[in-house]
């Protein structure tokens, strides 16, 4: 296929569909759940569980129209985050837990943990991933949560504390959901000893300590979880239990590398979420300017433009560059190309671009941008997380740098 920037029919339908969901279901309650932090956004959660998750695919023409695969997944994330990034993160879906099971689990595990998310009826459930600990965030290999194997019962016993677990409240308390927990089975092995385990909601020994109060994405439940002799069956380990201390990872070992591979899929999605928030701010800004009679003059030399026009043009270019890098990383997923460099590029670019775009929007709109009457100030607060979670700007720069320099991690830290 030649280079092509036109979305397939099905992808355009998905884009339009999720934009409508954003407009109808999310925007009207956006402020409500920014203010009502830690309250379950029941309208949204129930809508998504009962209707939203089926609404696109239930239409016959949507099913048959060709679409752009993983690019469409990114379009969905972008449009829904254009609606509200916090509510997007509160959707009852397998989320990052699902990505982990998909990329590191067996077919049986996928069936076992994911099928409940596809069935109609029942009550809303969530998936989540717990990596970060009070002392280990970006340096995931330094985590201290342990998993010990009890040979008598054939169970893994988890001990430790996890923080910053997105959707962790829902995933730990609504029966049928699950959390993928990273833990070490051999501290002396460093990253080689790190494995991921599926912990079903309400497993004894897993305790929800509480949710963080945050700068933004306040509708999202960012949980602290304590694992105190929390037992999970042997089958809940994703990948093999083999500990590799040195040397190349052989095929089939989906331990730390498998867990890290989750990011190749999740980073483009996070980048898409970022462009959604950035797009919300920029769309609003352009609309406001237009209402004031200000048209952006793309055909006028920069020196004759107003500062606002120059800002808007730069913001548009930055946002579009981030979006296209995201699509490229997603397209590589479709074609089975290794995309960890491109996924990090997209994430680094999008996280920073929308941080700046939303801040600039607040600045340009002055008191209007700062006021809670509008959502602009919220978008600025919501956008910032995209430059932090799923690998900070600096972690993604590190990954890109190692790849372009062809350095192993020991050479560049």
């Amino acid at each position: 296929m030649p280079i092509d920037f036109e979305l397939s029919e099905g992808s355009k339908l998905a884009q339009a569909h999720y934009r409508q969901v954003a407009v109808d279901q999310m925007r009207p309650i956006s402020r409500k759940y920014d203010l009502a932090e830690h309250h379950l956004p029941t309208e949204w959660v129930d809508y998504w569980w009962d209707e939203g998750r089926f609404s696109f695919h239930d239409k016959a023409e949507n099913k048959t129209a060709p679409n752009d695969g993983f690019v469409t997944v990114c379009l969905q994330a972008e449009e829904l985050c254009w609606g509200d990034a916090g509510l997007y993160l509160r959707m009852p879906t397998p989320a990052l837990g699902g990505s982990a099971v998909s990329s590191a689990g067996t077919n049986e595990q996928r069936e076992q943990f994911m099928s409940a998310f596809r069935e109609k009826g029942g009550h809303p459930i969530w998936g989540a991933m717990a990596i970060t600990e009070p002392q280990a965030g970006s340096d995931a290999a330094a985590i201290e949560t342990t998993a010990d194997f009890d040979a008598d019962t054939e169970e893994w016993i988890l001990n430790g504390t996890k923080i910053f677990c997105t959707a962790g409240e829902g995933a730990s308390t609504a029966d049928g959901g699950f959390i993928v927990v990273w833990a070490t089975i051999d501290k002396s092995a460093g990253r080689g000893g790190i494995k991921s385990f599926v912990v079903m909601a309400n497993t004894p020994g897993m305790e929800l300590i509480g949710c963080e109060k945050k700068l933004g994405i306040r509708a999202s439940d960012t949980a602290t979880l304590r694992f105190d002799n929390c037992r999970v069956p042997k089958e809940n380990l994703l990948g093999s239990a083999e500990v590799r201390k040195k040397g190349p990872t052989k095929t089939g070992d989906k331990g730390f590398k498998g867990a890290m591979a989750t990011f190749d899929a999740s980073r483009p999605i996070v980048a898409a979420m970022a462009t959604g928030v950035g797009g919300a701010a920029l769309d609003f800004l352009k609309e406001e300017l237009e209402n004031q009679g200000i048209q952006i003059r793309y055909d006028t030399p920069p020196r004759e433009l107003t500062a606002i026009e120059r800002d808007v043009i730069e913001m548009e270019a930055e946002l579009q560059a981030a979006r296209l890098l995201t699509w490229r990383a997603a397209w590589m997923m479709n074609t089975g190309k290794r995309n960890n460099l491109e996924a990090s590029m997209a994430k680094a670019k999008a996280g920073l671009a929308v941080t700046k775009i939303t801040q600039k929007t607040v600045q340009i709109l002055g008191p209007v941008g700062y006021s809670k009457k509008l959502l602009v100030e919220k978008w600025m607060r919501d956008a910032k997380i995209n430059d932090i979670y799923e690998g900070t700007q600096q972690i993604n720069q590190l990954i890109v740098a190692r790849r372009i320099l062809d350095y192993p991690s020991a050479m560049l830290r």
Partner: protein
Amino acid sequence: MIDFEPSEEQALIVETVHAFAENEIRPLCRVADEAGAPPKNVVEAAHELGLVANSLPEAHGGGGERSAMTGVLIAEELAWGDLAIALAILSPGLLGFPVADFGSESLQKEILPGLVGDAFVPGSLAIVEPRFDFDVFHPQTTAKRDGDEYLLDGVKCQVPWLEGGRHVAVIAREEAGLAAFVLARDHAGLQAEPELKMGICGLPTSEVTFSSVRVPAEARLSASDDEIRQMINRGRIALAAAGVGTARASFEVARDYAKERETFGQPIATRQAIAFKLADMAIEIDGARLLVWEAAAALDRGEDVSRLARLAYDQTMRIALTVTDGAVQVYGGHGYIREYLPELHLRNIAGFASFETLALV
């Protein structure tokens, strides 16, 4: 369907042009810069590849395969070798494309066969004017109808003026809007003064004065105001691609240098201050390239690309300056020395603030 993979044919072209840029252009970029002209044999060898001729109409001996996407791929690779030499190689397009798109049958017969012949014949397009408040869409050079003739008046600069060129296209302002003309370089009343610039020195350019130049009405291309605007956008997209190529070259030399140069017993590339700068360069170059590709794809679909061309050009200008300046910085003192490439790249890229239509796709 979203796809970022060049076609097999395009991949082959990129491979060929890249090899040419690496083996023929890059080794002589410094020589061209110091001499103020491109190496003749390199330009002629590039002409034999048919990079421009391939896109000109079949009826006049060209390949008839015009594609903006292929054009930007070629421009990036050539400019990766050297921006000035790349622009010299692509210069026949400055004349060939406007004539092919908007010239009368007789003008096409007069000009196009020469551009696709065995010998390299450069082209010229006069568009930029030597004033700080120049606006490409509102030039001060005027064209006034006078009976069967037009009267051209004004001053242009940054006009590619390579040895052996016979014609020049010029963009002027008519009452109704933009108008384009083609005339002989030695036309009465036209005066060309070679000019010296900070960069792209390997591309000889002239300041061209039109004093009451009379041309016959047939010298006016049929292009409407909108069509000339679209042509200017084509120029921006082509130039942006060349800017991406230059930035990529700059990034690569900085990356390689950073892996060799040691401080305190370690290559400087192992320091985050340097490594992160290089990572940012790589990210921004890829982002700008995708904007260029998106604009080229829209061109090939026949859409109005004013906005996309603007975004791609501005973004490239911005990031390429950051990248080339960053490369000088990574090199430290050596970056300031003309023995190494970073200073050359930086001087070349600084011109993007005023360049218009130095290449076309």
